[in-house]
């Protein structure tokens, strides 16, 4: 695969892992809701969203494998890496919690993904821009879905409002990481390949605040930020999740059905 000029293979691989792992882990967390959503219709909706995310993850990890050029495909990267090698932000690996938590996380990430992938479509690395454009269509619908749910959870009953607020308060300290840019991404952003995610923050802040206000929910106050997922320092939750996600592929390597 031809890499864009002035870009290191290792850095681009690292970056694609971050993008792909974010989709993969979030998608898996969402898939855990299958059979556990409050109503049948929402069960189908969440399973659809999870499948979209897994599809996005597959496309990005496939590309990562091609860039790495070491013979690893999307499956090898998804199922045969350990937690320390995953590069997702911590927010996506937190347990699914109650429905309020699942949906609040989805909403915060949908707003973020919408901004992120809108810019990613402009990447100078065309295979990445193409994948981003395809994902963006799906993300638009995801955002519509989770936005509507936030309005209803916030504006529903005291119970639903309290649960949505508690979820936001609990996860807020993990949101800074979505906009944290280290050396790897700064260089790739400079080369026009990556998105400088710190630039998404003002729009994210205002779009999230607008919906929360309409929903009768508070924007949580800034807590001490927790980061590290992008560098492979994860919460204890990721290892447990991967054990479940990877056991089949590891027990029966190369199996197909």
């Amino acid at each position, binding site marked *: 695969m031809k890499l864009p000029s002035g870009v290191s293979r290792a850095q681009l691989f690292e970056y694609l892992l971050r993008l792909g792992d974010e989709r993969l882990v979030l998608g898996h967390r969402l898939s855990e809701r299958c059979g556990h959503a409050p109503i049948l219709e929402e069960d*189908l*909706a969440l399973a659809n969203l999870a499948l979209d995310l897994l599809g996005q993850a597959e496309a990005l990890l496939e590309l990562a494998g091609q860039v790495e050029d070491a013979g690893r495909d999307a499956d090898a990267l998804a199922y045969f890496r350990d937690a320390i090698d995953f590069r997702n932000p911590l927010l996506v690996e937190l347990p699914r919690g109650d429905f309020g938590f699942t949906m609040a996380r989805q909403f915060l990430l949908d707003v973020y993904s919408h901004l992120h992938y809108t810019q990613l479509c402009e990447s100078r690395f065309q295979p990445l821009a193409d994948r981003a454009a395809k994902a963006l269509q799906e993300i638009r619908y995801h955002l519509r*879905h989770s936005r*509507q749910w936030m309005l209803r959870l916030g504006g529903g009953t005291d119970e639903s409002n309290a649960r949505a607020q508690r979820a936001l308060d609990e996860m807020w300290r993990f949101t800074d990481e979505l906009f944290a840019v280290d050396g790897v991404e700064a260089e790739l952003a400079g080369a026009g390949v990556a998105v400088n995610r710190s630039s998404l923050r003002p729009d994210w802040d205002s779009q999230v605040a607008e919906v929360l206000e309409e929903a009768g929910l508070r924007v949580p106050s800034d807590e001490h930020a927790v980061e590290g997922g992008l560098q492979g320092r994860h919460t204890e939750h990721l290892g447990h999740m991967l054990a479940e996600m990877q056991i089949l592929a590891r027990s029966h390597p190369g199996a197909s059905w």
Partner: protein
Amino acid sequence: MTHDTSSPDTQWPLWEVFVQPKSGAPHEHAGSVHAPDAEMALQNARDVYARRGEAVSLWVVKAEQIVASSPEDRGPFFDPARDKVYRHPSFYRVDRSLKFE
């Protein structure tokens, strides 16, 4: 608004879903969903009946807004048509080259 309390499977109203498979085609009844309001009904309909690209347009209608004939009407409503052949436009010769959509 009345609720059927004999089978309280949900607190949300029922909506009937109509799917238009392609532009210009009629919207056809696909099934129903439960939802608290119109926007969520539309989203649920999308996820249940149009997630594999089956539709270019969706309608949702509150089930209670649909006026339906009742089973007792079956005789007086529909039966008299059976023996009135003149109501069926079957006496015209149609050129074979004509195609019906």
